[in-house]
């Protein structure tokens, strides 16, 4: 799958920041998302703050978050 992540990063970040703006500082730092590290199979837990950082950095985890957001938005046909 080849996605223009740079383009979609902007769209997804706008949505994430809009949600983030509605959150309390407590919720922004609350680790709520549970992933798995593909290399070690250890779990990774992200807060909304960290999720935004991953997307901003366009890390592999950030790309996964972008993809999930796009699927939910119905923007992605894969």
């Amino acid at each position, binding site marked *: *799958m080849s996605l223009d992540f740079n383009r979609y990063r902007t769209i997804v970040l706008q949505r994430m920041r809009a*949600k983030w703006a509605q959150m*309390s500082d407590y919720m922004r730092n*609350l680790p709520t*998302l549970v992933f798995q590290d*593909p290399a070690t*199979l250890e779990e990774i837990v992200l807060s909304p703050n960290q999720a935004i950082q991953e997307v901003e950095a366009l890390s592999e985890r950030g790309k996964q978050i972008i993809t*999930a957001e796009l699927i*939910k938005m119905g923007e*992605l046909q894969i």
Partner: protein
Amino acid sequence: MANVLVTRSRNADIATSYLAAYAAQLVDKAIQMGHTVTDLYGSEVTLENFEAEIEAHNIFLGYGHGSKSIFLGSKINEHSEVLLKAGVNSNLLSGKKVNLTSCLTGITLGPKMVEETALEFYGYVGDWVFVYHPEYYPDRVLEDPYAQAFFDTALTTGCAVLSGKSPLEVFSETVARYEYWWNYWIRQEDVMADDILTWLNWDRKNFIAITPDGLYAPTVKAKAGNLLYLALPLSAALGFLIISDRMEK
């Protein structure tokens, strides 16, 4: 009635804590349904115990970490036990129905099991991601309002298998449960609702049922209630999975 083997890995992490707690409910349900259940939990979830038990069972329900080609048991002495590895001992599932609630095992391990004559496989071709509320972990995980949608749906698959449903029925009931929770969370004002919707949709998209006759996988959906099923023969399915495999890289 069937002989059912359940593995509930339990490490000092969030995912296996939740999986083990919720899967315990399915163990109770299976017993109520009249099945004979062997429940391996925590330190009991070792390769040695798994291989000693699996032959005598017709249904295997596994809850724990996984990757494309392996499914893990519990951590013993800091090392996770590998219960199943594609092409190594995946043939142990020959003639059995299998449901793995874990990340990624639908990509390689599941197809390999079915190739080696497992009857049915249900699992995920992507990371199985969930949202939880830290205030409910670790003591009240069954009351966690964020996690409930994810684990309730995961148990729906196992419950349908235990009920003797056909692969299409198992698949449809699981997807319908994702739809149910989607419709629930789309109406909630909670600040985490959008994240929950995102990852419910992600998990639903990655759910897959594989049988010797073909596979069932959801197409991408834009809105609840607009779901199509993709049913492919296994030869084409393997092509699909290879494409998925490339997507992971």
